[in-house]
C-alpha cells in the first residue's frame, strides 16, 4: 500500500482563472471564439512544458545512444584517424574485415562461449530456483547466498578465479591434487581456457536469474499443483506439466537476456587471458576493442560493431515472433 502525501497544498485557488486578462480584449472586434483560443494557448504551453521535462532524456539519449548508433553505421563506410576528417571508402572496411582470419576465430570463439554458457549456465539457475522454492524455513539465507557473487565487481571476481585457476598453487589444482587428479592447465591451454571462462561467468551471473525464476515460481497459483495432485500426478509430472509450462515466458525472456549478454562477452577474456592462449579466447568484442584502441582502425571496428548490432536485432526479432506465437497458441 502506498501512502498518500500527508500535507496537501494549502495555497488559495488563484490559478483557476486563466492567466490572460479578459479585460485586455474588451476593445476592438470581438474575438471569434475566446475559449477555443485560450485552450489552444495553454495547450501549446502545456506541450512546451512537457517537452521541457523531456530535454534531459532527449539530450543524453540523442547524444550518447541514438547518435552513436547512426554514427556506427556511417563510420563503417569511412576511414578516420580521429585527427583528419573522415573519408568515405565504400565497402573497404568490410572487405578488410572479412579478409582478417581472426574474424572467423573471434566469431567461432564467441559462439562457443555462448553455447557453453547455455549448456552450463542456463539450466543451473532453473534447478537451483526449483529447489529453493520448496524451502519453507530460512529461504532468505538461500537467497542471500545465491545473490552474493553478483555484487562482486567482475574484475575482482575474475582476478580471484585467475588465482584459483593457477596451475601450481591454485585452489582448484590443490584440491584436485589431493584426490589424485590433475594438474590441469585451466587458462593456459587453448582446449580448456574457454571452459574456464564460462565456469567463472556462470558463477558470477547466476544469482539474478535464480531470483527472477524464484519470483515467477512463487506466483504460480497453488491450485494448479493441487488439481494435478488430485488427478494423480507425481512430483516429477507436476514439475514437467505444471511448473515448466507456467514458466515458459520467463524462461524465454531469460534465454534472450543470456544470449544478448554472452554474445557481448568482453571482461572475462580481457582480464583472464587477453584473448590467448593462441587466440583461443579472442571474442568479437575483444576484436572490436583491438581494432579500435590498439590498431587505430576505427572504421573496421565500426563495421564489425554494425554487423553485431544487426545480429542482435535479428535475435530480438526472432524472440518477439516466437513469443507472439506462444501467446496466440
Amino acid at each position, binding site marked *: 500500500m502506498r501512502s498518500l502525501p500527508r500535507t496537501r497544498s494549502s495555497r488559495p485557488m488563484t490559478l483557476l482563472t486563466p492567466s490572460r486578462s479578459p479585460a485586455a480584449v474588451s476593445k476592438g472586434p470581438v474575438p471569434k471564439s475566446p475559449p477555443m483560443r485560450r485552450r489552444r494557448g495553454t495547450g501549446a504551453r502545456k506541450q512546451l512544458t512537457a517537452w521541457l*521535462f523531456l530535454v534531459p*532524456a532527449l539530450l543524453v539519449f540523442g547524444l550518447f545512444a541514438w547518435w552513436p548508433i547512426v554514427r556506427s553505421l556511417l563510420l563503417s563506410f569511412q576511414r578516420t584517424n580521429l585527427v583528419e576528417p573522415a573519408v568515405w571508402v565504400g565497402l573497404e572496411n568490410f572487405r578488410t574485415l572479412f579478409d582478417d582470419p581472426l574474424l572467423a576465430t573471434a566469431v567461432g570463439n564467441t559462439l562457443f562461449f555462448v553455447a557453453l554458457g547455455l549448456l552450463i549456465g542456463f539450466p543451473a539457475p532453473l534447478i537451483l530456483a526449483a529447489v529453493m522454492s520448496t524451502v519453507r524455513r530460512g529461504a532468505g539465507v538461500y537467497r542471500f547466498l545465491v545473490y552474493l557473487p553478483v555484487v562482486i565487481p567482475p*574484475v575482482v571476481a575474475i582476478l580471484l578465479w585467475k588465482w584459483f585457476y593457477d596451475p601450481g598453487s591454485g585452489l582448484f589444482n590443490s584440491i584436485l591434487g589431493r584426490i589424485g587428479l590433475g594438474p590441469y592447465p585451466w587458462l593456459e591451454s587453448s582446449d580448456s581456457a574457454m571452459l574456464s571462462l564460462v565456469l567463472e561467468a556462470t558463477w558470477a551471473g547466476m544469482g539474478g536469474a535464480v531470483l527472477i525464476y524464484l*519470483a515467477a515460481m512463487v506466483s504460480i497459483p497453488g491450485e494448479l499443483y493441487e488439481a494435478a495432485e488430485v488427478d494423480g500426478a507425481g512430483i516429477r509430472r507436476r514439475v514437467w506439466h505444471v511448473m515448466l509450462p507456467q514458466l515458459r515466458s520467463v524462461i524465454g525472456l531469460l534465454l534472450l537476456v543470456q544470449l544478448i549478454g554472452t554474445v557481448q562477452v568482453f571482461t572475462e577474456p580481457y582480464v583472464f587471458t587477453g584473448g590467448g592462449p593462441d587466440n583461443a579466447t579472442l571474442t568479437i568484442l575483444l576484436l572490436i576493442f583491438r581494432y579500435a584502441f590498439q590498431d587505430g582502425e576505427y572504421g573496421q571496428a565500426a563495421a564489425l560493431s554494425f554487423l553485431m548490432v544487426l545480429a542482435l536485432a535479428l535475435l530480438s526479432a526472432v524472440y518477439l515472433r516466437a513469443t507472439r506465437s506462444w501467446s496466440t497458441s
Partner: protein
Amino acid sequence: MTTALTTFVSTNDRQRPGVRAAVRSIQGFTLILLLLIGIGPLYWMLKGAVSPPTELTTQPLALWPDRAALGNFATAYTDLSVGRYLMNTFLVVGGSWFVQLFVSATAGFALSVLRPKFGKVVYGAILATMFVPYTVNMVSLFMTVIDVPFLHVNLGDTYWAIWLPAGTNAFTVLLAKQFFDALPSELFDAARVDGASTRQLLTKIVLPMSKPVLAVISLLAVMHSWKDFIWPLIAITDPEKQPISVALAQLATQAPQDQLIAAMVLAVAPPVLVFVVCQKYIVAGLGFTGVKG
C-alpha cells in the same frame, strides 16, 4: 517465517517419509553448495589477503595462515593507491546514479503524466536502445565523447564521459514511466486545482509517492556503474582518475600476489557491506523488476 505456499512438492508429499527425507537432503546439499560458492570465494580472498606470500604457495589449502598479517591492507591502500581508486569509484558511481535518476524521473514524468504529442515516438525510440547495448557501439560512443556534437568539447578523461552516457538506461525510464502510470490521475488534477506548477507536481506529488521505484532505479544504477568495466576502461585513460575496477586490471600485472588480493578485498568490501545491510530491499527490488519485465 513459514509460508503455506504450495509448490510442486505438496503438503501431502512432505508427510511421506521417503519424500520428506529426499527433500530435506536436497535442500541441505543445496545449502552447502551455496555456502561454498557464495561465502567460500570471499572467505578465501580474505584469507589470501592476510597470508604471507610464502604460505600462499607452500600451503595453498590451509584454512587460515599461521601468522595472519594485516599489513597488506595498509600497503594496498597507500602504496597501490587503492584509497584514491576507491574515491574515484565513489565519484563515478555517485554522478552516474544522479544522472540516471534525474533522466529517468523527468522522462518518466513527461511521458506518463504530461504526455506531449509524439511522446509515444520518443518512448519507442528510448525503448529501442535496449536492443543495442552500448558496449557494441563503444567505438562510436568513444568518438562522440571525445568530440561532442554541436558543443565540440572533449569529455575524454573526465567523469562526464561516464556520467552522461549512464543516463541512457532505457530500462530505468521504463520502470519510472510504468510506476507513474499507475498513480491516480485525480490526484494530479486536484494538485492542479490547488495551484501546483508542473515542477511542483513532480517534486511534491509524484516523487514522494514513488519511493519504491526510485529505490529500485537507484539500486540498478549504483550496481551497474560499480560493476562497469569496459566503458571506464575506454573513457578514462588517466591512471590518476581511473575507478578501482580498471585500476585492478592493470595492477594485476604489476603488484605482488598478496598485496593484489588485499586490494581486491578492499574493492569488494563496499558493495558486499551494502548488500549485507540492505539485502532484504535488494532482493525484493529485483523481484519487483522481474515481475515488471
